[in-house]
């Protein structure tokens, strides 16, 4: 008998409300399969199971609020599991619902009531959420008895306050416990943008790659050189991660942010990253994320350039030990060693890192490596496997 417990959904989430089961007793489940939906302060999270087996008993009912670690269900291990389960099956992600339109009046009222309007079923034009929908949800969450019936609206109610509180708790812990140091580096982006322009020329608009994808990949590869920036600080020691699961900070329209992980950025091809990033942003905004994405980012990358800032002074998301911040890619004067000055697109990359796990010298190496990698975008594109990259980098070193 296997106990399946509510997995950690990130450091600032220690409980959740079970919204619904996606499986029934007797169902055969595969590792990686979504078995339940749990509401948290940040999103409705699709909880994945980490074992193959057959569902024996469901121990928690929809509507119940449960702390992380609570046994949700029991499973029977499959009879002949001689071969350990392989990588999780490529279970299709949940269909990404688009953001529901919300009328301004409805949004205002929802904020007053602490309801996340996007989670409501809309009755207005094109399914838009109207003022009446918000009022009805509020009445329902206050009036109706029965945990299952009230679960969705009551969990949604107050989510924005709960999210603010969760972010506050995680960031307070970060500022209290983590001795941050900060570094920044100006990175010329002419090569990277020219490469992107060539790559995107003639490509269908939906498949065009954003600079953010290239930067994400470069961050992941640069971390191979400085593994002390990628991992977790737990119980008095740093534990390096074996892969780069980059938490991508995504701001939510109703306020707040989430930083779910894109897995294995270091070993993923750029086209796959492009798709994954688009999918992740869409799902984060729609409030539909997977438990593995919430639980295991090994570093966070935040890109605030779209809002026009020059640089970011990041706060590390514990138990991670580093955060990479990117500002706006702007045309700036750039002086070469030869004395020549040219106007170039430049981005300021910053690193906030945990002094318990690394020193400024190593952090500086990371930023220098990031800068170098972004000068050779073709290398980033060629690199889809760890081995290939190390070979490439070694060759690169030989010429330097």
């Amino acid at each position, binding site marked *: 008998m296997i106990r399946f417990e509510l997995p950690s959904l990130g450091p600032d989430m220690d409980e959740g409300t079970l919204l619904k089961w996606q499986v029934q007793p007797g169902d055969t489940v595969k590792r990686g399969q979504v078995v339940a939906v749990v509401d948290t302060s940040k999103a409705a999270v699709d909880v994945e199971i980490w074992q193959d087996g057959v569902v024996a008993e469901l121990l928690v009912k929809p509507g119940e609020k449960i702390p992380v670690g609570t046994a949700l269900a029991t499973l029977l291990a499959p009879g002949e599991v001689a071969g350990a389960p392989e990588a999780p099956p490529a279970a299709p992600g949940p269909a990404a619902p688009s953001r529901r*339109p919300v009328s301004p009046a409805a*949004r205002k009222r929802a904020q007053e009531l602490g309801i996340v309007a996007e989670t409501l079923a809309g009755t207005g034009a094109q399914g838009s959420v109207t003022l009446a929908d918000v009022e009805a949800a509020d009445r329902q969450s206050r009036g109706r008895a029965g945990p299952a019936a009230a679960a969705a609206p009551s969990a949604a109610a107050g989510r924005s306050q709960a999210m603010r509180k969760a972010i506050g708790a995680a960031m307070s812990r970060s500022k209290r416990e983590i001795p941050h140091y900060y570094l920044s580096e100006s990175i010329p982006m002419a090569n990277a943008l020219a490469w992107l322009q060539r790559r995107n020329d003639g490509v269908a608009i939906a498949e065009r790659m954003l600079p953010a994808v290239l930067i994400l990949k470069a961050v992941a590869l640069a971390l191979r050189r400085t593994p002390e920036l990628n991992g977790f600080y737990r119980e008095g020691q740093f534990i390096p991660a074996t892969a780069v699961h980059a938490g991508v900070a995504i701001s939510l329209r109703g306020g707040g942010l989430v930083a779910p992980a894109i897995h294995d950025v270091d070993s993923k091809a750029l086209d796959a990253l492009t798709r994954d990033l688009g999918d992740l942003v869409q799902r984060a905004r729609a409030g539909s994320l997977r438990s593995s994405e919430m639980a295991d980012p090994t570093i966070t990358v935040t890109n605030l350039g*779209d809002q026009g800032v020059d640089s970011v002074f990041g706060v590390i998301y514990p138990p991670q030990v580093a955060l990479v911040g990117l500002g706006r890619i702007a045309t700036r004067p750039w002086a070469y060693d030869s004395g020549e000055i040219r106007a170039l697109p430049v981005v300021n990359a910053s690193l906030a890192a945990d002094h318990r796990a690394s020193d400024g010298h190593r952090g500086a190496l990371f930023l220098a490596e990031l800068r170098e990698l972004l000068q050779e975008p073709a290398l980033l594109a060629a690199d889809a496997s760890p081995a290939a990259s190390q070979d490439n980098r070694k060759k690169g070193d030989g010429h330097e």
Partner: protein
Amino acid sequence: MNDEADRRALSGTVLDLLRKIAPELEPAAIDPHRPLRRQVDLDSMDWLNFLIALGAHFGIEIPEADYARLVSLADVIDYVKAGRHGS
């Protein structure tokens, strides 16, 4: 259709597309001559999704080189009008 009526109709369609990405958008509050992204708080992913929707709806190709021309609502309307006539 005269030009002004045509522009009004296009503006309504464009804002409808934008609302699928930014549901809270209030059309009346949009100044057609100021940058759209600032007014609606769109990040680069939102903007890309908007351009995808725009291209699909009007059946126009929007090469990346043209992104810089699409700043305000008025720019977008001009671009769509030119694209429709050109094709």
